[in-house]
């Protein structure tokens, strides 16, 4: 018994340095950044050995969301939402499609898998450099159609100033209500078959009412900003989204392929015996079984999309307003403008967005482990 006790102590002592490191470097630093975001640390003397730092409360956040000078942050935040949505849709969709193709066991499967996955091993700086050349306005992708007799494309992939899906930042509250209503209605429709009346009562009806109220009462909602400020989806981000999808769809492909291979042959045979077509097999059996993989992929990809710093830096440089991202703005604000407090506030916003995805995921995987 005594031997066991000392061994347990040894085990704990082995872990202790890592616990301390993670405690300080992860949790301590997060706390420190949160504190710094509520100070006025910046501008002159910011880099002094002992800078003067005063606590000013949430002023930096108020500035970021409603301040005149911080319009770029708001557009970057909108960009980040679009980057995430398109990366998720593109990489999950394309990755799943390729995985299904490879699951049909074509000849040369090993070679093809390597081809689809190699971009994943590259650094974002490498792929960004190559894609910047591929997307040059008068060359690369734009002149590809001329090789099959079509006119060239004239789209300015990385420098376009066109913006679609525009909205006024003043109406932010209304738009968020619309989005919530939309998600509730879609979710309700998906649940309709399984839950019937409950889905109508819990999701469809409240969603419709919320949407109607937001539409009717939009004018009475408080405005999020004092003047009209237009934001939207910058078309210049399309090239970066394309490059990122190219790089990360192989990752979702690998996840799904591993999942498909994990489905027992008995299950596949049973589905075949029941007369399920290929399409029905994937639609009703394979893909629903791989729901945990889909969730993992979404978590990892949304995490990656929040860190798109590297590839945007390589493709358009950090200063390009059209393709901006809060991750880059944080870097510019902190290390170029020496406005540490505001940089910290941007980092906290990024962190909170990431945490809303990650924490439920970690908590549920912790509970699953505990339940086993």
């Amino acid at each position, binding site marked *: 018994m005594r031997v066991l006790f000392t061994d347990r102590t040894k085990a704990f002592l*082995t872990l202790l340095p890592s616990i301390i490191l993670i405690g300080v470097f992860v949790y301590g630093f997060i706390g420190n950044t949160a504190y710094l975001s509520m100070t006025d640390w910046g501008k002159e003397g910011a880099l002094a050995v002992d800078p003067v730092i005063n606590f000013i409360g949430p002023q930096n956040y108020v500035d970021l969301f409603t301040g005149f000078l911080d319009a770029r942050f708001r557009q970057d935040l909108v960009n980040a939402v679009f980057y995430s949505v398109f990366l998720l849709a593109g990489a999950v969709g394309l990755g799943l499609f390729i995985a299904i193709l490879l699951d049909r066991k074509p000849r040369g499967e090993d070679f093809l898998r390597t081809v689809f996955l190699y971009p994943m091993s590259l650094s974002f700086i490498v792929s960004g450099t190559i894609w910047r050349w591929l997307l040059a306005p008068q060359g*690369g992708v734009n002149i590809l159609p001329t090789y099959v007799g079509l006119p060239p494309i004239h789209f300015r992939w990385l420098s376009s100033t066109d913006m679609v899906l525009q909205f006024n930042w003043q109406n932010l509250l209304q738009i968020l209500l619309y989005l919530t209503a939309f998600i509730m209605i879609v979710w309700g429709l998906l649940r309709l078959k399984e839950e019937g009346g409950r889905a109508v009562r819990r999701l469809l009806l409240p969603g419709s009412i919320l949407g109607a109220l937001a539409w009717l009462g939009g004018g009475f909602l408080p405005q999020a900003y004092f003047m009209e400020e237009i934001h939207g989806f910058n078309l210049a981000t399309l090239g970066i989204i394309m490059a990122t999808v190219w790089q990360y769809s192989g990752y979702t492909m690998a996840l799904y392929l591993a999942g498909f291979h994990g489905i027992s042959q008995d299950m596949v045979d049973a589905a075949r015996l029941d007369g399920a077509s290929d399409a029905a097999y994937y639609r009703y059996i394979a893909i629903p079984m791989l729901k945990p993989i889909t969730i993992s992929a979404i978590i990892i990809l949304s995490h990656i999309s929040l860190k798109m710093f590297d590839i945007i830096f*390589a493709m358009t440089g950090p200063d390009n307003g059209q393709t901006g991202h809060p991750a880059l703005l944080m870097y510019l604000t902190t290390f170029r403008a020496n406005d540490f407090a505001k940089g910290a506030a941007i980092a906290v916003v990024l962190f909170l967005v990431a945490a809303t995805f990650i924490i439920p995921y970690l908590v549920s995987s912790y509970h699953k482990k505990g339940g086993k």
Partner: protein
Amino acid sequence: MTARLPAGRVFLYAALALLAAAYLTPAYMAVITALKFPGDITLPTAWNFPVAFNWGSFSEALEKLRPNLVNSVILTVSATALSTVLGSLNGYVFSKWKFKGSEVVFTLFLFGMFIPYQIILIPLFQALRAVNLYGGLPGLILAHVVYGLPITTLIFRNFYAQIPTSLIESARLDGAGFFSIYLRIVFPLSVPGFVVTSLWQFTQIWNEFLWGICLTRHTANPITVGLAQLAGGQAVSWNLPMAGSILAALPVLTIYIFLGRYFIRGLLAGSVKE
């Protein structure tokens, strides 16, 4: 089968061929552009095969990126080795020496792998300055070791979960202690775990950019930062950035092509799928 479903098979191969061509396009473009002479690189002929091979692009890019490559080798090898060894010990404790609350601690570890690193950047920058590690490689190595702990611990923990606990129990009955069990039983069984983890860490650290640019001075810049600077200038002739990209990609690409199986296992482990 092939005879019965020709249409489906034709579609399958056509789709795969098209996709494979699209995925290989950037690689093709990088190689042909790197092999051209600066004067031969024009936008309308961007897709054409080089008229004359300019192998000099590579030596010129190597000359420019040599200090960065040396930095990256030192950084990657030492940070990979340290974080892998620590991860192995942690994984051993988390899987075979569970204590009250160890699952909670483990989950708290994992969280460190999902944070956007901007959230720790400012205190990290300050802390490294305070202990005089800012600007050089040791500070960067420290950062990579610490923030590599969650993933290395995760991979080893899942790997060691496959070692039967009865093996550990019987060794303990024979009087083996915590460290001798690790050295005599667990470590010798860990070779695949070490391969997966170190390949994963190697590629991650080699490819990392944010800390490289924020935490190092010019002389300690890793390859990603060197490449970004080489490619960043406006009047640059494109054969150099392309040759530089190929040089920067070569180590990870080699690992991936020859040891791809292990790389994929690292990928799958990284998705917390048990």
